[in-house]
């Protein structure tokens, strides 16, 4: 053992929790798994190892990546967020009614996108406020806010599907730069911004610390509640952008735009190494998780596995990944709920 504290502490310690140094298996595991799975599919399937298919994978991962960026901050705090479907739905309908469409005369363009994202952020803020003011667990508040979001979306929907004719927004899904759709570049941008927030902002670092030891923050005189609200607001903004992206892909606003993205994003984050108990993982972990899930889905299709099997196979992989992540922490008489 090398101790930088000088000769005084150079003693042989009896068995006790030893400090971990270097890259832990938990951090290195998901990237290794991604590489292995990728190589495996590439070996088996000629269709998988084409440039075109790799582009497909990246494009297919875009929306999930943005949702996962948002949810990662919430998970890092040790909270959970199930509001993505509702928030995405509200943002999708809102943006499709604000840009050029077949329902009204609006043509707000980029401003419409911004308003939709702000609406989503407000919904996220609502989750956070309910959590810190009413002390309702995030599981319930976000479930409720998801329903509120779907309600807002349904009201705006009004029975006639808004199809968008805005060239800019439709172009995001179609036009390509360096072989990837604009949407994919937006997703890259989100991951980068998320990473910067995580490493260089107080918000990101405190989200991390809240998941690590919230009571220590309180003992150090930090008011935790505003940061929690801010994290949920940030997550809402990411969901809103994801809702806009789905609208761009479909050229239409759908209430169901975010269906299934809550669990898909949690899955991706957990598979990437972000613990549901908080304090571990991060944006880059989650990005790897998103790619893992997407590569898996794409690869299973390419090698000819029936789509009926895919849901079950993905579920098994999630349980296995979570089990592997908690192995180092297991002890006798552990209470698991």
């Amino acid at each position, binding site marked *: *053992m090398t*101790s*930088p*504290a*000088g000769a*005084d*502490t*150079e*003693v042989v*310690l*009896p*068995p*006790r929790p030893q*400090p*971990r*140094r270097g890259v832990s298996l938990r951090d290195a595991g998901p990237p290794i798994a991604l590489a292995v799975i990728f190589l495996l599919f590439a070996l088996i399937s000629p269709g998988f190892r084409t440039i075109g298919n790799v582009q497909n994978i990246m494009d297919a991962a875009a929306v999930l990546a943005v949702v996962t960026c948002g949810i990662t901050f919430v998970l890092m705090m040790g909270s959970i967020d199930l509001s993505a479907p509702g928030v995405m739905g509200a943002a999708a309908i809102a943006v499709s009614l604000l840009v050029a469409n077949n329902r009204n005369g609006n043509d707000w363009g980029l401003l419409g996108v911004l308003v939709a994202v702000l609406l989503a952020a407000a919904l996220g803020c609502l989750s956070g406020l309910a959590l810190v003011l009413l002390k309702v667990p995030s599981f319930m508040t976000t479930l409720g806010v998801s329903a509120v979001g779907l309600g807002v979306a349904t009201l705006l929907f009004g029975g006639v599907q808004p199809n968008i004719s805005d060239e800019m927004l439709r172009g995001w899904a179609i036009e390509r730069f360096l072989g990837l759709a604009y949407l994919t570049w937006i997703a890259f941008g989100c991951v980068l911004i998320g990473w910067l927030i995580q*490493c*260089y*902002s*107080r*918000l990101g*670092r405190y989200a*991390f*610390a809240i*998941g*690590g*030891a919230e*009571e*220590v*923050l309180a*003992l*150090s*005189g*930090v008011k935790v509640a505003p940061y929690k609200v801010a994290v949920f607001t940030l997550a809402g903004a990411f969901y809103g952008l994801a809702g806009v992206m789905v609208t761009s892909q479909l050229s239409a606003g759908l209430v169901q735009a975010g269906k299934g993205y809550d669990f898909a994003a949690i899955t991706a984050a957990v598979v990437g190494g972000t613990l549901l108990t908080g*304090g*571990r993982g991060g944006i880059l972990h989650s990005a790897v998780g998103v790619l893992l899930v997407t590569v898996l889905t794409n690869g299973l299709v390419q090698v000819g596995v029936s789509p009926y099997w895919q849901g079950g196979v993905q579920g098994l992989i999630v349980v296995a990944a979570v089990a592997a992540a908690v192995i180092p922490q297991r002890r*006798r*008489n552990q209470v698991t709920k």
Partner: protein
Amino acid sequence: MTTHLQSQPDAQASAPVHALEVRGLVKHYPGVKALDGVDLVVHQNEVLGLAGENGAGKSTLLKALVGLVRPDAGEIWVRGEKVRLRSVVEAADHGIGMVFQEQSLVPNLTAAENIVLGSEGAGVRRGLYRWDTMRKLAQEQLDKIGSQIDPLARTDTLTFAERQMVEIAKVLRIEERTSHPPVIILDEPTSVLESAEIETLFTQVRRLREFASVIFVSHRLDEVLDVCDRVLVLRGGQSVGEVSTASAAPAELHRMMIGSTGSEDHYHDTAAERSDQPLQPRLVVKGLSGATFRDVDLDVHAGEIVGIVGVHGSGREDVCRALFGAEPIEAGEVTLDGDKLDLSGTRAACAAGVGYVPAERKIEGMVGPMSVADNMTLTKQKSRCSGPLVMPQKQATLVDKWIERLSIRTPHRGTAIQRLSGGNQQKVVLARWLVAGDIRLLLLDHPTRGLDIGARSEVYRLMRELANSGVATVLLADSLEEAIGMSDRIIVMSDGRATAEVGCPSGAKPTPLDLVKEMV
């Protein structure tokens, strides 16, 4: 920080203003008077030791000093100014900071972030981190204590000793808040350290004294005497005296801590009723080793109460839990009445007639919202069942019998156990092992923790009755006095090993001092 070194320790002569003064501090908790008029004075550039048994009020006093506990009465004066401390931040504004017993660092942040946490100052601009500044700020603090730790190391990659240095560096941040020398409280700082690390810590404490006042709390009297200038002794929530460490001996200090020993009768010592012990011990432990203990040998006869004493970190709690199968073991053999005891889990121990009363009653000992009856029959399900079905009438008869026998004061057997007083809760927990009538070995981990004196006495009486009926008992007492009063024999543990055995027969009890000699 060289300016600190210039201040002279004999400043008291010119200014009679104390760095910190506490007058008549009182704090009640339901059923307990944690602080009963404590007085305390800390001089400038002094290390004041705080000694006292468990429950003497040490931690409540410390919490009051950093604003975590609001006293019911009494005053706190800082440098001649009366203050009200309502939070850790307010305490820090007055220059009082504490290194907590349970290390209070965020494990997944860097050392630098932990050091400046909550008062980042120039380290954060418009919500954005400036890592360079942050590292510099942290380095300044680490330099004060001469530590070589890398400020950007993640805290959970540091050793215990290193983390403690980070905590001290963090506490010294309060110097930035006030122009006065700070008061630093160290609560049991040595309990997780190895002896070489403890020496390093003591060097730090002496260094702190150059520019700060220190309150040092430790279970180990030799440490207190070694590092402190003066020691204040607390007992029963009161300051019972202080000694200068230049002249004091551990014996004197310990006498003050425990006061006059209570009457023997308190422990219902009824040795006369005990029959002669059979030759073969009921419980035989050979070479038991686990993560925190090594090669522990132990034997307990039927009807005997064997106490295990040791300071915090001696490993005695883990031995106790291991004997119940609740803690994994690495080596060793345990037999109960000649049969090998399966330690692979708690079910096997229960089935073999081993009972365990955990120290954390509210967390591990009982299911709070469940009824007295359900708590009592929790383990021995067969006692209330017929086949797979619970028989309410069978349970009621059995539970009512034990409520009467142990005189448990509860409105009804269906009352939620959390509504009972601590003593009655503990009796229900004990009854859990008795209802089936197959108990052979009882492991008691601080069975009187948090109980008032009357309830304690009743638990003692119950322990005696069980021992007299032939149950073998292992007792981890709350205090040395209790261990001596209740035990027939006492094993001393230190650093995970059983280091001594002291006979403790009725009528020839050792003094606490005899035990302390073996413990340190």
